[in-house]
Every structure is written in C-alpha cells, then in structure tokens.
C-alpha cells in the first residue's frame, strides 16, 4: 500500500541532505580558511624558507629601560640562531634553537649552556618574551584549531579576528589565543594571549607597516604584559632578508661559537 505522506517525507529528507551538504563545507571551509590565514600570516613574517634580520629590543620598566640589538637567522620552523651585538656586556652571546631545545653560548665564561625546562617561563634576556614563547611561536599553525569569530578594524586595516584553541595533547602554555590578521597582506596586527582560566596574560601589537625585504610587514612590535603596570617590551626590525639559502650546518653548536 502506498503511504500518502511518502512524497512529503522524501522531499524533506532530500532537502535536509542538501542543506547539510551545503553548510558543512561552508563551516569546514571557514575553519580551513582560518588555518590558511594563520599559515600565510606566519610565513609572511618568518619567510617560507629562511629569514635573516637585525632587530633592536627595548625592555621598558617603571624605573629603567634597556636596549639589546641582535641578529636573527631562521630556517623553517625548527631552526633559529640569535647573536647579540649590543650592549657591550651582552655582546657575543648566542642562542640556538633546534626543534624544542634551546642553547646559550656565553663567550665571557666560555660556556655552552642548555636551557632547562625550568627556565622556559623566564623572560629572554630579561624581556617580556619568555623563552617558551620564542621556542614555540612556530607552532601556532600546527598545535591549534582555528576559527574566524569576527571581523574588526585595527589601525585602519580590516582584519579577521581568529580564535586559536590548543589541541588536546599540544604542549602549549596558553588556554586560548586571539589574533587579528589583516585581510589584505595577512599582517598579524594584534594578538591576545589567555591562560587556561581565560585570564588575559599579554597583548602583542604591530605598528609601522612598511616594505622590508621585499614585503609589506610591520617593523615594530610591542608586547605588553597585563599584570605588571609600566612593563613592556618593544622590538624594532632594522633589516630583514627573506629566503636566502642558509645551510643546515649553520644551526649548530660549533657555529654558535663562531658566528659574527
């Protein structure tokens, strides 16, 4: 016997199927889009292959201020080498990052020191960038899920506001990160870092967008910790060159002692 409502039923189920078929990809595309955006933004600053730069970092505290100048080489996401060139007391120190390990060479005492996990939460050279931050910054693509939650304007640039939630088993200290990435040029205009209890711990802002190394990128960054009044760290990019070939052997302990 034919069911008089059969056509109706069939029609509804096809409609539902169609709707699902349309929306799911949209949502996934959205998430994929977010991941792509983050990836592009990351590559813009780091270079797709390598980068070499000279930067000046200013540590600002309520009663004093200090400037450190250094050269920075990166290759891919795993390798980076930093050579401190000023002030005189710090000059000659080098830091090597390989994968998840970090090393420090101090020429005054002729010692190579491996940074232990206990030092990871401390500021690099006394700044507001923790050793952990510098080590793990490259994992924002891999260790998180990404979602566009809004669109906002920062400093005259239209941005995607993207929420990054760490994956279950990712070895990451943040509970959540929110990044504002400009729709054009994929500039990381602003980032907010939250701990596991959703408290804002620090904010990073980008300024002075200009062409450097053949790309339009911010040349000044400010990292402002939320809790400490009058504390911040500024980094100014003096020079940067992208994707010039650097051999793997450059990122070695021997080279730490030789690099100039």
């Amino acid at each position: 016997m034919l069911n008089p409502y059969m056509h109706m039923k069939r029609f509804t189920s096809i409609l539902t199927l169609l709707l699902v078929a349309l929306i799911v990809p949209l949502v996934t595309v959205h998430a994929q889009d977010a991941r792509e955006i983050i990836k592009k933004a990351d590559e813009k600053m780091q270079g797709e292959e390598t980068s070499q730069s000279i930067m000046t970092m200013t540590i600002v505290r309520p009663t004093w201020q200090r400037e450190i100048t250094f050269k920075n080489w990166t290759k891919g996401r795993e390798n980076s080498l930093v050579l401190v060139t000023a002030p005189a007391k710090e000059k000659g120190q080098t830091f090597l990052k390989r994968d998840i390990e970090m090393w420090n060479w101090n020429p005054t005492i002729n010692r190579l020191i491996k940074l232990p996990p206990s030092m990871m939460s401390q500021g690099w050279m006394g700044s507001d960038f923790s050793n952990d931050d510098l080590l793990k910054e490259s994992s924002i693509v891999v260790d998180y899920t990404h979602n566009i939650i809004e669109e906002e304007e920062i400093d005259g640039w239209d941005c995607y506001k993207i929420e990054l939630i760490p994956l279950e088993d990712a070895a990451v200290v943040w509970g959540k990160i929110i990044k504002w990435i400009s729709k054009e040029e994929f500039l990381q205009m602003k980032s907010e870092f939250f701990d596991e209890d959703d408290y804002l711990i620090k904010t990073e802002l980008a300024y002075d967008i200009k062409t450097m190394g053949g790309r339009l990128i911010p040349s000044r960054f400010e990292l402002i910790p939320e809790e400490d009044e009058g504390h911040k760290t500024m980094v100014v990019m003096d020079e940067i060159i992208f994707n010039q070939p650097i051999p793997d052997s450059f990122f070695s302990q021997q080279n730490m002692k030789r690099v100039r």
Partner: protein
Amino acid sequence: MKDYLKLAWRNIWRNKRRTLITIASVFFAMWLSLIMRSMQVGSYGHMADGIVEAFTGFMQVHKDGFWNDQTLDNTFAYNSDMVRGIESDDNVKAVIPRLESFALASTGELTKGILVVGIDPVKELDLTHPDRKIKEGRYFNQSSTGVLVSGRLAEFLNLELNDTLTLLSTGYHGASAAGIYPVEGIVEMPNPELDRRLVFMPLPVAQEFYGADNMLTSLVINVHDSDDLKNTKKNIQELIESGFYEIMDWKEMNPELVQQIQSDQAGGYIMLGVLYMIVGFGVLGTLIMMTTERRREFGVMVAVGMQKKKLGLILMIEMLMMGLVGAASGIIGSLPVIGYLVHNPIRFTGEYAEIFESYGFEPIMPARFEGFYFAGQTAIVMIIFILAIIPPIYSVLRLKEIKALRS
C-alpha cells in the same frame, strides 16, 4: 643584738658536721645554678655572635623594601654624605658597604648556587675579620681581581688556590652577569652554613660582575656598645631619608634565631626551676633534721625560761649565717669554673656536633660572665633558703616543752 649574734655563731660551731652539711647544701645550690646559667647565657651569646659578628652585623641600612625583595633592582647608590653622618654617631664603630647577591658557581662539571659577597677589602676587616679566617692563600690587596672561597664550598667544587671559578647570574636591570675569577684565597667560616656557600669579591669587582656600578645592597653598621643598639638605631633612622631607605637590627634580620634563643631560654628556665626545687627540698630537709635533733636542747631552754620568740630569733640567725656562708662560698667557688669555661668552652664531637652544624652553629658550649645573672641567682637562692627556714622555725615556736623534754 650582738649577744644574739655571738650566741648564734657559737651554736653553729658546736656541731661542726651538722653545720657543714647545711652550708654545703646551700653551696651546691649556688654553685650549680651559677654554672648552669653561665653556660646558657654563653650559648645564646654564641648563637647571636655567630650570625651577627660573622655576617649580618648589628644593623644594616638598605633601600626601602630590599629585605622583602632581595633583588639587585633594590640596590642604592653609595652616598658619602649619608655615610659620614652615620659615622659621626658616638656609638657607631664602622659603616661597611656591601653588595650581596645570588650566583651560580661552577668548575667544570660541578655547579652550586652560592652567595656572592662584594666587600670593601679595608672596611670589612673591622667587621667580620676575614683576614683572620684565611686558611690558604692570602687576603685581598688593593689591586685584587680574584675571589675568596669559603672552605666547604671550595671542597665541594674541588677548588684549589689559583684555580678558576666561573660565576653566572642575572645582573642589575636584567643584564647577564658572567665572569671567570682566580681563587686568591680560601677562608674558613666558623658557621658551617656560611662556610658552604660564600664567595667574597672586592666590591668594585662584584659591581662590575653584576653591572651595578657604584650600587650597594647594604651598609652594615658595627657598634661599640651593643646594649645601646635601640638608641643608635633611632638616631640613624633620623639621618636617613625615610621611605627611601630602611634600617634593620640583627634581631629583625634573624627572627628565627631570636625565636630559637627564646625557646631555648624557656627550656633553660625550666631546668633551673627543677634544680631549685631539688636543692630547696634538700636544704629544707637539712634544716628540719637539725631542728629535730636539737629538740631536747630547745625543750630544756624553754623550760628554764627562755622565750620561744627569742629562741626562734636565734635559730633564724643561725640558719641565715649558714645560708650566707654557703652562698658566698658558692659564688666564689663558681668563679674559677666559669672562668675556665669561658676560655675553654666544651667542644662537642661526633653525632651531637653534627646536629649543631646542621643548624648552622659551631659545636661548642661556651660560658659567659654577665653581672645581672649573678645577682639574680643569688637572690633566688636566698629566697629559697628563707622559705626553707620557715617550717623549722615555726615548729620551734609551737614547741611543747614536755614533749620536747621527753624526746
């Protein structure tokens, strides 16, 4: 009155043995309590000295807030006007500048967290006398650029004279502090805890290491008379800019030590209390025995017509005389013993010594002379004696002649 005294005195010596026993009991009470007290007072003084004269000094001036947050960012610049002002106080013996901070010390494979003490090579001599503590090598001279390492630390790091010591730390305003220094001498710190972790540096060398040019963590103040500390502290407080500097005395800087001394003192008092009880009863027993022995004699005297009151008075004088002789001889007898212990303190060895050392004290039990406790002990023993007199005198006053004559 003179007759009574004569009578009493003759009475006493009629029975030499009995008298001597009574005197002896008072003598021992006095002698033992004085010696014990001298050793207790000596221990506390020793503990305090161990910290004060060896390291913290009697008072220190810091940047305000330094004590609670002992970082290099809480240092202050040397201010010669302020120092001169403090030095002008009568009770101030010396004002000694210091820069102290944490560092990692390393030789090859071994590393240890230690305290770097930047000292003025000349001024420090007046405080902790580091020159007298040199075990090997020599003390700093005007142009020294090396370090003095404390004994147990040098042992741990396998350091010998002229070896190189590597130091690593965080400096002023977050700068890196790193340097290598030759070992110019090895010092022996009596306090074992300090002996394990000190590295002395000439002040300018320490300031350069930490990138803290002309900065100090403290001005250590040495005084002539430590009893007048409170007043001196107040005077100095008025000289220094309040809100910018803080001044603390050694008791504030070592509250655990003060509490340790206090709890020890409480224990000491209990011990003395027990001693007094034992001795008190001993004396009481002797006196009762004496009175009971002479019952017949008293009975006769009362029967013949002596007033009990007068009898009681004579007996009291007899007992007081014995007491005084006992007390005086106890005091005199204790003097040589205490004198000996002051100069030759009992030195502990073995496990007991280790317990001392684990608390950070030299394992000796010294004694001290201090006027006030002599007077105090004498007074207490005399009071106990007078209390012990009461029961026997009372029994004499209530004497029943018939019964007495029959005893």
